[in-house]
Structures are given as C-alpha cells and as structure tokens.
C-alpha cells in the first residue's frame, strides 16, 4: 500500500483554544480581502469546529446588499470550497448577515448597534464583538472613532478592533493614528494585524529558540557572524498599482513583515509566555535596532525596480509598463539594507534584509550564519570550510535546515558541507493553516500575542525614518536600480554584501 498523505489519527485532533460565542463584524465586506481571505479562513475554522455554534458574521459596506446577496456573493467567491462542502456551507452561511453601513454616518452606526443586538438574540452571540476594519487605511482612525462614539467599544472584555496594514505611512502618521485608536479603547482591544505573524514558521522561531536548550546559548554575537532575512516574490505588482505606487517595497513589506521577522529572531527570551511579555521584548529589540549608517543611509540601503524580463515567448513587463503605474515611477519594488542592533546580544552583527517583486524565486527565510571554526584542521572539499548556517524557511516548503561540515568519505580527512533538514509538510500529519485562519481565531479569542502593539509599530517606523526622509527629500541619493524581472535583484545589492566579504544566499 502506498504511503498515506495525512495521518488518519490526526484528523479532528487539534487541541485548540475555544473561541467564545461572538459576532465578527467586517467593515469593507464587499472588498477583495473579505472573499479572498477572511471568509475562506472563517469557513475553514467552521469546518474544523473551532467556531462555536453561536457565531455570526456581519458584513458591512456601503453597497445596499441584503443578507441573501452577501451569502450568495461569498458562496460564488469560494467556488469549489463551497461545492465540495455544501452541507457545511449551508450551516455556516446561516450565520452570515449583511448591513449597509457607512462608517462616516453616525445614524448608520446606531442602526448597526440595533442590528448587533438583534443578532445577539438570534444567534446567542453574548454581546462579544470583533470589529474588523478591512477598509481603506485613511478610514482606520475615523472608523475606530465612529465605533467608540456609538458605544460599541465600551466593554474591553467583549469588544475589539482588528486593523489591517499599513498602520500609518511613517513614524508621525503612525503616532497620530495610535493616539486616535487608543482614545477609542484600551490597547488590549486593538489588534494590528500582520499576516506574517500568522505563519506557523514565524511562530516556530519562538518555539525553536525558547523550547530548546541547544539554540539559545549560541544565538548571539559570539557565535553568529551575520543574519539575512529575505522575502522574495515572483509576482509583479498585479492589480495593486494604485496602492503600491504610494507605498513601495519599504512600506509594503519591510516596515511590517520583515521587521516582525527581525524582532522575533532577535528578541530576548520573554519572562513568561504572555502577550505583553512577548511584545515587550519585541519592542525593546526594535528600539535597539538602527540602520548600519544612519547619517548616510545611502551607504546601507539599495532600492531597485523590476525591468522587463522573461523570454521571447513569455515576456514579462517592467514595473513602469504595468497598468496603473507612472511610466517614470521611482517607486521601489526591491529594497535591501543593512541593520545593526545595539544591544549586548547582537552588537556588531550585521543584519541584511531584502525584499522584492519579480525575483527569481518565491520564498521567505531567515538565515543565521555562524562564525567559522577558529582553526581549520582539515582540508575542505570545496576549497575552504563552509560556515555553519541555520536556515528557517518561512515559505514555501516551510521548515528549517542546518548546514554543517562532515567528513567526506574516503581515506583522507577532508570536510564537506551537508544539510540536516526538518520539513513541516513531512513531519506532521496535517497541513498548516493559512495565516489568516490563525490570526482571525486569535483576534476572536482576544489573544494579542501575534498582533503588533503601538510601541512596536512606532519603533518599526522610527527605524526606517532616515530612509523615508531621504526618499522624500533627496531621492537622488537613493537611486532606483533597475533589475531584470525574475533575477535576484540589482547588482548594487550584491555589492552591499560584497563590501563585507559576504554573498546573499541563492536558495
């Protein structure tokens, strides 16, 4: 008999925390994120019996839809997922409702309050509410305020708000937004979502570091010589040109996702596994982080933009040829930079961070390179011994690998590198959940561990302020380097590491 794909004993066995009865209210329910990510994630939670029977989803947007229209739209969007699970969908869809709401109209909020009370009675959702702001970032502040003014956030135990990225455009705007949302409720009611934190492999960095004794003693400047953090995409800007033109790779990826990976990789052990203890440590390490050269940031940062590429048969347009993009756009689709963390653990260890669109491979990873052995006793098959590396693969092919030297077979004593590998897919009898499944569940559980706190967000923006100011004030000092689509970015980025005698990992 052939090997089974999943472990049949594993099915339905997750010991998940229990989500309390509640109503999830999504503002911007007619938008893309709702039918592409949020509703599929909720349906997955439903199928896994992780949603209570007393659950309701209230979609809100300006369109004058009815409950039935909303249910049908969601069913159409989920397509096969619904067709293959028709009975489950029908039961799940009975808890879907829709209310036309314009967050800027107080009378709509009053109407919303009444509808929520009605749903409480209908679905016994116990007045527990999670409000998800899947709206344009410019409405985050006013949206929160409207909810607070309508009295919908007054119970900190029973109401919370989830806010999508981007949280601000820079340090100043993030501070201003924080002030507004914090005036609407307590900090523990505000859930700033970063879907990278929903990835099993990002969370696994915490477990690997703090549930084992072998890593933490060497997780510092005495043993680690450099760290690379990469988030590479093969896709271009797709339909997001409008947003991306005003954002760029630095705001879209680095300030949030890559900085969160950096924080989790470098934070000190928390005193206990508690949301605040973990977020304290993340905020602390971000406060200690800085650009490698703050006074002349152009020395430690490279910006790039993808140019045409591909083949004659399948050509790929450059960024400036994409629909909706300014033909002389100077928005970066690639950014690489060097950072330092000025604390006892990491002083002097360079952190190289890069992200880009239309790169050679889709992958996210953290690579810790260890110092070389102080004395080389053996000949190395590859010319010189390879430094040990621990590679934490965030996506795809989630897992970890460790590169180390072993004796090459034969009569001599030559060393050569080998890999020791752990793969999530192979090791566990079930696939990992999508990031949104985990994060939606956590938000509804009221567990903020995997959400960013106000001080983390501000620290992350402050870290990149010199670059943002430079791009704003004298962009010629951070020129855009074009790179061919589906390559590993501009040559200037290679030079950034070559100056330190290093190479980017080419996975």
């Amino acid at each position, binding site marked *: 008999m052939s090997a089974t794909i999943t472990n049949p004993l594993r099915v339905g066995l997750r010991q998940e925390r229990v989500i309390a009865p509640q109503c999830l209210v999504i503002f911007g329910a007619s938008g893309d994120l709702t039918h592409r990510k949020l509703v599929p994630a909720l349906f997955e939670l439903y199928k896994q019996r992780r949603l209570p029977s*007393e659950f309701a989803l209230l979609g809100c947007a300006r369109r004058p839809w009815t409950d039935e229209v909303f249910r049908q739209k969601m069913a159409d969007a989920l397509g096969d997922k619904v067709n293959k699970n028709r009975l489950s969908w029908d039961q799940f869809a009975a808890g879907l409702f829709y209310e036309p709401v314009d967050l800027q109209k107080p009378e709509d909020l009053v109407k919303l309050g009444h509808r929520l009370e009605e749903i409480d009675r209908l679905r*016994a959702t116990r007045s527990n509410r999670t409000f998800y702001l899947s709206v344009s970032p410019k409405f985050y502040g006013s949206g929160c305020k409207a909810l607070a003014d309508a009295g919908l956030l007054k119970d900190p135990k029973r109401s919370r708000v989830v806010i999508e990225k981007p949280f601000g455009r820079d340090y100043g705007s993030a501070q201003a937004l924080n002030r507004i949302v914090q005036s609407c409720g307590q900090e523990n009611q505000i859930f700033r979502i970063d879907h990278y934190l929903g990835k099993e492999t990002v969370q696994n960095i915490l477990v690997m570091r703090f549930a084992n004794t072998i890593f933490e003693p060497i997780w510092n400047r005495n043993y680690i010589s450099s760290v690379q953090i990469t988030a590479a995409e093969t896709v271009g800007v797709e339909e997001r040109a409008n947003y991306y033109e005003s954002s760029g790779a630095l705001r879209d990826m680095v300030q949030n996702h890559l900085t969160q990976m950096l924080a989790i990789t470098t934070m000190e052990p928390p005193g206990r596994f508690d949301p605040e203890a973990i977020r304290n440590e993340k905020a602390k390490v971000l406060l200690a982080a800085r650009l490698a050269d703050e006074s002349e940031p152009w020395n430690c940062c490279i910006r790039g933009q993808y140019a045409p590429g591909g083949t004659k048969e399948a050509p790929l347009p450059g960024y400036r040829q994409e629909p909706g993009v300014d033909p002389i756009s100077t928005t970066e689709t690639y950014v690489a930079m060097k950072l330092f963390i000025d604390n006892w653990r990491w002083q002097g260890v360079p952190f190289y961070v890069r992200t880009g669109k239309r790169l050679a491979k889709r992958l996210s990873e953290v690579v810790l390179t260890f110092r070389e052995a102080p004395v080389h006793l053996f000949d190395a098959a590859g010319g010189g011994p390879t430094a040990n590396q621990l590679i934490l693969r965030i996506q795809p092919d989630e897992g970890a690998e460790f590169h180390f030297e072993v004796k090459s077979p034969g009569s001599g004593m030559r060393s050569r590198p080998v890999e020791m590998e752990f793969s999530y897919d192979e090791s566990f009898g079930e696939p990992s959940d999508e990031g949104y499944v985990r994060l939606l569940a956590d938000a509804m559980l009221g567990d903020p561990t995997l959400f960013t706190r106000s001080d983390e967000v501000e620290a992350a923006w402050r870290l990149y302020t010199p670059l943002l100011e430079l791009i704003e004030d004298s962009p010629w000092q951070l020129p855009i380097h074009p790179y061919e689509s589906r390559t590993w970015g501009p040559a200037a980025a290679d030079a950034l590491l070559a100056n330190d005698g290093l190479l980017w990992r080419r996975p």
Partner: protein
Amino acid sequence: MSPQLTLQSPLQLPPSEVQSYLEQLWSNDQPGSTGANTFCLLVWQPAWVEQQLVRTDQIAGPIIGVQRPELIQAARQAVIDVDMPHSTAPLDVTVAAALAQRKGTQHGEDLRGQHVDAAISALQPRRLITLAPTLDEVHELETLVAAYCPLPEEGGGTAACGDVVVLRGDHDALAKGLGILQPLLPAELPSWVWWNGSLDEAPDLLDQLAVPPRRLVIDTALGNPHRCLDLLQTRVKAGQAVNDLNWLRLRTWREHLAMVFDPPQRRNTLHHVVQLDIDVEGNHPVQGLLLAAWIADRLGWLPQSSKRAEGEGIAAEFKRPDGTTVQFRLMPVPMGQPSIHPGQIVGIRLICKPDSQPDHAVCVILCAESGGCMRLEAGGMASMELLEEVVPNQIASVEMDIARLLAGGHNTTTPLLAAAAPLAAKLLS
C-alpha cells in the same frame, strides 16, 4: 481560581413564585433588562459521597458539589474504612452506598448550586439551575433563588449578571419541581444539562431534563457501561448535542497515539495493525472501548465479533479494509490508587506487521504516567521495533472541562465521538 459564592444570600421561595420573582428582580434592576445574554446551565448535582462523608463526620461541611482534594482524600480513606477493594474509584456510588450503612447525623450546610466554580462563573452564565437531591427519604421541595454577578477580572469589563436557582429535595420532590423549569429557560439562549452523577440514577429525571435542543453533558465513566453507551449512542443518533467528559479525558491518549504516527515513514504502518490491546483501571470498560472505536473508525476497521474474555476483559475482532483481521483485547487492571474517574486507560499496545515485510513488525506501547505497562510490555515484543511513550495524567478538573465546553459549545456532537459511540456499544454488546 477558587470557587465563588453568590454575593446575595439565596432567598427561599415557594416554587410557584420563582418565575415572577426573577422577572421582577431584573425589571426592577433595569427596565427591560433580563441579565446576561449568555447561556443557561442545568446541573444534576447529587454529590452522594460528599453528602455521606459530611453526614458521617468524615469531612466538614458545607456540601458544595465540587471535587476538591480534601473530599477525594476522605473518600479514599472511606474506601479503606468500609473494606472495599482498594481499586474502587473513590467517588463511585458504591462508596456512597457503603457509607450509607454507617451511622451519623452530622448536618453540613448545603451550598450546592450556590458555590460556582470560577472557571464557569467567568463565562457569566445567565442562569444556573441546580437540582440537589438529598439523602433524606422524605424532603419536601425547597426552592432557592439568588442574583449573581461574577466579579469582573482585573482590567475591568462589564459584569453581566445572572441568577442561580436551586431545587433541593428528595427524588419525588425534585420530579415535581421540574415543572417550573421550562419557563425559566429563555428560548433564545442555549441551555446545557450537565448530568454530574451516575447515568444509572433517576433516569426519569434525566429524560425530562435532557430534552433537545438542550445540550447534554454526561460522563460515561459513571454508571453501568451498557446503560452509558446505550444512552450516548441513542442521544447522538437522535441528533442531540452530547458531550462526554469520559471522551474528553481521552484527548491526551489520542494526541500521543497520533504523534507516534506523525512521521511520514511511520504513517503507512497504521495500515498494518494486527493487534490492539488496551488496559483500563478496574471494571469499567467504556473509555477503553471508546478509544478502540475511535481507532477503528479512523482506520476503517469493521467490527466482526465481540465476547467477554477471561479475566473480565473483552475480546473482539475487526476486519481491516484489506480484509485482514485485527485482534482487540481490553483488559481490566486493578490499581492501588485509582483515579476518581472509573475505567481510565492505563496502557495501549498496537502491533503492526506489514504483509510484505513480516520481519519488520512494530510494537507501539503508550503507558499512563500513573500506571505500569508491564503486562503490555511482556509477551514476545523483543523481536519487534519498539516505540514506547508515557502519557501524562489528565490535569484538568471536571469544572475546567465543563467551562471549556460552555465557552465555545456546539449544537451538534463532535463527529469523531458520534462515529465512535455506536462502534463502542457494538463492542460491548
């Protein structure tokens, strides 16, 4: 968290006045208010052993119906004092029956229903109704009511208030009192019935209390095994949401067994099981049967035969999807210091023999932390690849398990239990 008492002393009212009193209580407090918009919980709370221990002065009152450590310790001592086998589960009804033969006239204050476990009160139940049967042969119905506001935890939050209703009396009095319950359960809120006692007792009351769509919580470790499994599968088949605490306590066993087969190189081994052995504490086989039934269901085995085996065990045969026979044996094992839950699993052994490589047999043994697995380790396992693990003891209290169910309950039975229940019943028949 320690249990919390109602803030208000309960008021004793004639049964006929309870409903109007409660309605008045809420509308006086705030016009239109009906208290927390959460759920109602009905509890059958006999606490027979506790009542007998208090009566015979082996434990000080009050009687609260919570399985606290001093109660369990006194019950263990009582097992020894009344010359019962040391392997008797300390809160078993047989212990209460033996204690009933002893003299004693102590009266402890009866706070059943007013002493709410903190894990449950944190969920702000709308209404807690407790049926508290007394030891007296004749005890007229007493009806007590009290408003109840769980203190908000640190960090504030609105305390949504509820109330507690206690019906106390002998069996007939309680049966009469059931008439007042229906109007006390708002139709728009989910209601749970927690039968916190043996499934053998007061079947008439159980039938009247546990009517769908009320969600039922039972413990199939308490009561005659046939009655337990019969009730479980009947209710599941009828579409009622049934939660079995005995099944919940299996979770660490199921998790550990699944973990053994998580590595992909071992997953295929699961298709070559030829023998399954389960040892349980004492003579209550239900948990062991539920575990066997779950494994059989997950692996697609069909039951072929079942019979009582030597030494009070159960021997059965399954047929795998490929037609091969799987031998199953469940054995009772006497334990010196048994769990408070009868029939807990002590050990499990799975023997897998791939047809194509009979020399590559694998023997998986999981052992309870509190027990020994010597019986399962014996018997010629030396020639097989041995995978052995220790399963930690269940640490959650009954009240914690109940709170987990109440916190995010479902109006249907978990499909795994629904599939395992009829199979387990078949193995016992």
